[in-house]
């Protein structure tokens, strides 16, 4: 076997693995998005690129752009400010209840945005807890959105930065101290540079999530505040102004593409060799009043910012009526739906299971194809492509599905599979990001050791790689499940009226006046939260020590 033949064979195998995910993305992502852009910008078979300028000239569009950007920047800054001390506490201190608290802060991240929105509505909105107590409301201000964004993204910073922080070898700092650096100088010259790429990556992820924020802003923003994503939704489904929606989609696409390119760059820098140690040896009990006070402040922040909204949500769902709102969910009388709202639970679970299966197969194949570090530019481009659904307007994808997949040979309009397909698109990046670090950490020489002992490549993969990544695979599946369960932007378009998912049902209930509808929304949100939290707690037990990306 000459070298070039071997290399060709490796490339062929990799292309084979990539073929399925690439086809999936081409058909269910690129094609619908392209279709909707074309629908907006093409008239009588010619491109009307002049429309881009026309749309950008509108002052309300510019206002939306401006608001989207500055609220994302403000949310990111605020999240870092609040969450970095938390990342430090989780990384370096050992305290009772740490595992539980870590799970608690992660709950919001997998919560559907709609639930986050309604939780904050219940806390600071009209008739919310603070309104009841002191007549204090934030739902007409931008603060409600910013706080909800912090709530939502706290875990991103704690996980990304804290995960790395806990694995940095403290002896590196000690070495600097022995060379004469003060405690602060040692932190600044040794720890900070090592952390900086992780902080940058976390900040970019938060920026990305808040830049494309939909459910939260839709519920809390009211008529005054609108992000690009919300505006795309409004233009598409309320005003039916497709050209404007198409231009906005393209703007968001370009912005998200740039953010992702930056993110990929920081991730690559993070992969530079750092001395990592087992996280369990770096944490210790806080010492002295100052450190306990610091820890107390962190725990208090978590309690107020994360536990309180969740608790209020649960409390509102009982809202004086006992189990009344829950009971109402099972009745078919409101006219909001064609079916009792509780059926949304079953729908959601079914869809999420199907979406998880799709995401794990597609994402798993992609991750295996991407495992080799010496991958060429083509493969790196594929890596970036996989991240795109995280940031491309879910509304666009959903609407694109409707207009692109409605004619033979791909007439899926009537098929239930449409919803899981759209949800899987969002799940795939999570699967890839969770699997890839673990797959890459498997030493190639272990595979070689298996080969010289007589294992064929497939057998070696099954005997060596699979046992090591089984846990990561389960975690990836859990994330994909939670994300699918909460997906809103695309599902709201394609879920059929008689088969709503939980988030869609919550949003519809919230959109109706009356205490009963509001109470039912809170009750459904609570159910959704519990399902997500259970999925997450199972994950937390399985979680590997590796620094994941999420």
């Amino acid at each position, binding site marked *: *076997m*000459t*070298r070039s*033949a*071997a290399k060709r064979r490796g490339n062929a195998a990799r292309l084979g693995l990539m073929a399925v995910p690439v086809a999936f993305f081409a058909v269910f992502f690129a094609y619908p998005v392209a279709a909707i852009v074309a629908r907006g910008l093409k008239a009588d078979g010619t491109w009307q690129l002049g429309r881009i300028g026309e749309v950008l000239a509108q002052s309300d569009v510019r206002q939306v752009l401006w608001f989207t950007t500055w609220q994302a920047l403000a949310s990111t800054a605020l999240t870092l400010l609040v969450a970095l001390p938390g990342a430090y506490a989780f990384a370096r201190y050992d305290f009772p209840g740490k595992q539980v608290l870590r799970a608690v802060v992660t709950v919001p991240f997998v919560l559907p945005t709609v639930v986050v929105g309604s939780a904050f509505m219940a806390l600071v909105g009209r008739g919310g807890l603070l309104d009841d107590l002191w007549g204090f409301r934030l739902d007409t201000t931008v603060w409600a959105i910013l706080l909800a964004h912090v709530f939502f993204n706290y875990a991103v910073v704690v996980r990304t930065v804290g995960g790395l922080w806990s694995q940095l070898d403290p002896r590196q700092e000690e070495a600097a101290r022995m060379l004469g650096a003060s405690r602060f100088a040692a932190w600044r010259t040794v720890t900070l540079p090592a952390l900086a790429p992780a902080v940058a990556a976390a900040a970019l992820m938060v920026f990305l999530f808040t830049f494309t924020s939909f459910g939260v802003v839709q519920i809390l923003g009211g008529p005054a505040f609108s992000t690009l994503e919300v505006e795309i939704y409004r233009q598409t489904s309320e005003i039916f102004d497709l050209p404007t929606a198409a231009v906005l989609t393209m703007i968001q696409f370009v912005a998200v593409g740039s953010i992702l390119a930056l993110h990929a760059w920081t991730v690559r820098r993070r992969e530079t060799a750092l001395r990592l140690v087992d996280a369990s040896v770096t944490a210790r009990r806080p010492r002295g009043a100052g450190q306990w006070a610091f820890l107390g402040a962190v725990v208090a922040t978590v309690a107020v910012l994360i536990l309180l909204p969740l608790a209020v949500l649960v409390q509102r769902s009982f809202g004086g009526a006992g189990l009344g709102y829950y009971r109402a969910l099972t009745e078919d009388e409101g006219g909001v739906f064609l079916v009792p709202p509780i059926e949304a639970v079953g729908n959601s679970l079914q869809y999420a299971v199907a979406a998880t299966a799709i995401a794990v197969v597609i994402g798993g194949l992609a991750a295996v194809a991407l495992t080799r570090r010496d991958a060429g530019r083509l493969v790196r481009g594929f890596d970036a492509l996989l991240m795109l659904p995280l940031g491309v307007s879910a509304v666009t994808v959903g609407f694109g599905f409707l207009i692109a997949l409605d004619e033979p040979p791909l007439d899926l309009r009537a098929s239930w599979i449409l919803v899981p397909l759209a949800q899987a698109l969002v799940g795939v990046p999570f699967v890839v990001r969770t699997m890839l670090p673990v797959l890459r950490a498997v*030493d190639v*020489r*272990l595979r*070689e*050791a*298996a*080969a*010289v*002992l*007589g*294992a*064929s*490549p497939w*057998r*070696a993969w099954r*005997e*060596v790689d699979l*046992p*090591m990544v089984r846990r990561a695979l389960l975690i990836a599946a859990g994330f994909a499940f939670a994300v699918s369960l909460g997906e809103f932007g695309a599902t709201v378009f394609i879920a059929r009226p008689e088969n709503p998912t939980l988030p869609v049902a919550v949003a519809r209930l919230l959109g109706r006046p009356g205490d009963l509808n509001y109470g039912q929304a809170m009750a459904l949100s609570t159910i959704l939260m519990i399902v997500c939290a259970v999925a997450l707690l199972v994950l937390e037990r399985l979680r590997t020590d590796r620094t994941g990306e999420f």
Partner: protein
Amino acid sequence: MLLNLESATVRFGGRAVLDAVGLGVAEHEIVCVLGPSGSGKSTLLRAVAGLQPLDSGRILLDGHDQAGVPAHRRGVGLMFQDHQLFPQRDVGGNVSFGLRMHGTPRDERRRRVEELLDLVGLPGAAGRAVAALSGGEQQRVALARALAPSPRLLMLDEPLGQLDRSLRERLVVELRELFGRLGTTVLAVTHDQGEAFALADRVVVMRDGRIAQSGTPLEVWQRPADAFVARFLGFENVVGATVTDGVAVTPWGKVPVPDGAPQGARTLLVRPAGVRLVPADEGLRCTVAARTFRGTHVAVRLRPEDAPLLEAACALRSAPEVGDEVGVEFDGAEITVLG
């Protein structure tokens, strides 16, 4: 020959890591490839194992060209430098892995694992976790794992590299004894000459992807092929010289050489034992620059005027102090004309 390499060449980028290497290993022979790091030793093993494709040349096992035969069908064993035990399997699971791949029945596997663990001195360790093993124990498990499928050729990559010295010295004797008993054909690589000399029937010295010398340990030690091999073996007194009629002209003056030494411009090796210290007014005048205690003797570094440093071996009692002035005479019996 069981193994034959014919002008085997591997290039990384533009650099030839293996440069037209020709090498044969006979059945039951223990061959040790010796060379500094970066000389291509590990690549040689990986090429034979089928883990590194050749850019040109051939590898034959039992006379069959191995081109196109993937690693898992070559029937050779490789013990990796840092063992590469499977972390998620216990000791027994590691040792029986190769047997499972070859479809050995379960009872037979269990019997063989026990037998091998006895052989490597870890009886009853089958249920232990590999993470709980010491370095020496891991090395033994790796050896048992490599031996288990009875490979026709066993290759060892720095087999004792990471172990401490006393353990290494004991294990190398055990290994040679074991391979002799089993009749295993072995191709090992190491950078440690002591290990190579103790283990091998034949030593192959590599330099920059080429074979610099091949011979029995005694031959290589007594007659290094060139200045590189001599220096790699730890000899320092290596200089260019002109040899005529039993006398070599060197920067250190005229030096006697053995009868029948090749004539002309040559490289000369003076072993430390061949540098005799005499009173300062006799022989070549030197200053003692350094002395190093070596257990059985003292290595003394001498600085002559206008000539390269000289290393001498002295008895403990008669070793001079740093700064002393001494004279040097040369003993022809400890001098070799290279090449």
